[in-house]
């Protein structure tokens, strides 16, 4: 299995909108390898008081139960901190784990980052 790329990296591009709001462009797979990194990042933001989070999944090709767990953790923390976590641009495939676990009822999905931002203002 030489020549195969070992670990695909996860990159998170963060846009801060004021003190309490952040837009995270996530790029990479969300699985057992990368989930801890995402979970830590979300935790850090929330602890910083940035509790209004928009996650852009446009560049996320894969989410498994580990990735799902990190997101659930982030959602819980944000809500517990009086904030919210909005998910934008999930594909049909990456939604699969949400649907199978019925967590699609708890997570809020938006087709675009803008729609997700607009929903934050309404709250």
């Amino acid at each position, binding site marked *: *299995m030489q020549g195969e790329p070992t670990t695909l990296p996860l990159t998170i591009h963060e846009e801060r909108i004021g003190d309490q709001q952040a837009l995270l462009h996530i790029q990479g797979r969300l699985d057992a*390898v990368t989930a801890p990194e995402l979970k830590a990042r979300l935790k850090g933001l929330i602890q910083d008081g940035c509790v209004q989070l928009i996650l852009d999944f446009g560049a996320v090709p894969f989410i498994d139960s580990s990735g799902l767990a990190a997101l659930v953790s982030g959602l819980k923390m944000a809500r517990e901190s009086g904030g919210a976590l909005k998910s934008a641009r999930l594909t049909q495939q990456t939604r699969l784990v949400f649907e199978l676990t019925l967590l699609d009822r708890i997570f809020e999905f938006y087709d675009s980052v803008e729609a997700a931002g607009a929903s934050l203002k309404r709250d």
Partner: protein
Amino acid sequence: MYLEQYTAFVILAPMAALVTLGLMAYVWRYRTMPEVSVLLWLMAAVVGWLIFNTFETVAVTEAWIFFWAKVTYLFIVATPVAWLLFALCYSGRSAACTPRRVLLYSVIPAITALLALTSNWHTLLWQAYAFVPVGHMVAMQVSYGPWFWTHAIYSYILVLTGAVFIIRYSLRLFNLYRQQMVWVVSAALLPVAVNILYVARLIPGLQKDYTPISFAGASLALAIGIFRYRLFDLKPIARDIVFERMPDAVLTVDVQGRIVDLNPVAQALTGQSPGFRIGEPVTDVIPVWDAWLQMLQATGELETDFVLDDDGHPRDYEVQISALRNPRRELTGWIILLHEITRRKQIQTALRQYSEQLEAMVAERTRGLQEAQTKLLAQQRLQQEIELAAQIQASLLPDHVPVFAGYEFAAAAIPSRYVSGDLYDFIVTDPETCHIVVADIAGKGVPAALLSSTARTLIRAETDHETSPGRILTSVNASFYRDLTQAEMFITFLTARLDTRYGTLAYANAGHTAALWWRQASGDCEECPATGLPIGVLPDATVEERSLVLRPGDALIFYSDGIPEATNTAGEFFGADRLSALVHTYAHLAAPELLQRIMEAVESFVGSAPRSDDITLLVLKVLPRTLTFECDAALDNLHMIIALVRRAALAYGDSFAYQVELAASEIASNVIRHAYRATTGRIRGTLHLLPDRLQLDLYDDGASFDPHTLAPPALGEIQEGGYGLFIAQKVVDELSYTARTAQGNHWKLVKVA
């Protein structure tokens, strides 16, 4: 005086009869000649007349005298008829001597003879007669009845007519045959004269009729004339027949150069005046006569050629001139024979021209044959070279198909000529990668074959350092464009890279016939159409690349346009539809069998029609296969494992692949995080790719666990963990765990396509 007349007659008549009889004996051998046979009849009549007149003269009783007089009359009446017939034959009027005519001429004489025999009872012939003693003899003196004069006049008419014919005919020839003519004309005149003297009593006291003796004399003269003075051993009569009927022109010319005789052909010889005419100088028509004459006087004979102008049409004659001499060997004239040889000349000329043409033709053909032979030799050499080229080309084609587990190849190439413009190749660049190349040079025969060799070299060189089919073809186009443009050719090229591990096929198609992708799942053929222009059309053309993932059960058919364009005797194309139908029917067969069915179908379709194009056919069959992997059970290797599974599963579709990926990710993560929680170890995997399903077996040597101990997650609630196995179970058809098998703890995932 009377007595002397009678005595003289009695002496002369038997003598004349004897002479005539002798003459008859002499000419007897010539009796087959018509005029001689008639002459014999004349002489017989004359002899009869002489003999019975003598009997009459010497008879002593009145009864005998009367009897012999009657008998004599039978011959008297016959003589003028015989004379006329002779004259007709002699003067070339034998046509007037038919038996019918002879009967007609004989009507009056026959009546006369009858009257003579019956004169005891009538006076029509003899009105009165008296027997007068003449010495010791008795003479019968008669006065004539009316019929006598009738007969006499008739006889004179016959005799005179004959004489006129003979004399007129003779006078024509008089200059040439003078001696002969003197005899003949005398003979003609003698009986007439004598008879007139007697009948008209012109000689006083002439009591005895000497006419029979004069006829005997005439016969003698005729015989002398005919047989003594012969012209070229021919009597004039025979000469005349020959002369008149000769197909050649005959002229007789006297020593003065005047034309004295000519035959009808000579008369008709010239269409324009002056023609040959009797009495005119021969130089009027033959200006060179004087020159000929000089030669003739030396040799006496001349043979030459002469061209006569006939109303502007030159006529060629062969001229023969002979001297005419009288019995004393004196020159009397010339006989000229003109034998027309215009036709012969024309034939000769035509023959000569034909012969020249023939020679030219032979020369040309010889040259042609030599050229053809040279060409043939060159062709044979070329043929040998072509056969050699074909051998080389055949040796350049893969002599075997590549062997990869899970794949089956078959290939066939049939050149329409010895060498082919088609090309195919398998290029194995690493143990898991095979490039498949098919190309068709637009053109056939040697030039196409040469280019196909170059194309093969180029594609091999490119494939050595480039993996992307699109870039390979783009590069081939860039480096081959110039040569192809110069050769005014282009190449359609399809190159595909098969990743045997994952079953992915990347291809680039530069204007080649679309390859067929038989997809077992859908039961349909998809095309791999052209993704760019043929090589050699544009200098900087790029060829796009596409890829597909092959699933076990699938087949790929690469072919040259020789298959769809194969033409049967009715002029119909085999067509791409027939090909897909065949693939549809026989896709379940192994690659060589599938290929064979297609080739047979094309072959039987074409039948006896000529093979118009090279045919190349490649079949790739995708078989069930197994992928194995093994690595340290570490999260660092998770992506690698998942990527492998995902890529292999893509053949079954994106959604399928995602779900397998998801399940594999959950299970592998589980193994890494839980089985090897505290330790490190290996994780081994086997991926079975089957036409209708995918099976993943994962083995580990870590701690085993009882999956039933895991509580199902509380769905719909915010729960951070415990979803993994649940999710995996949801997305595959079978998920089982067997702890501690011979190969370790065994996770088995099966997903049905």
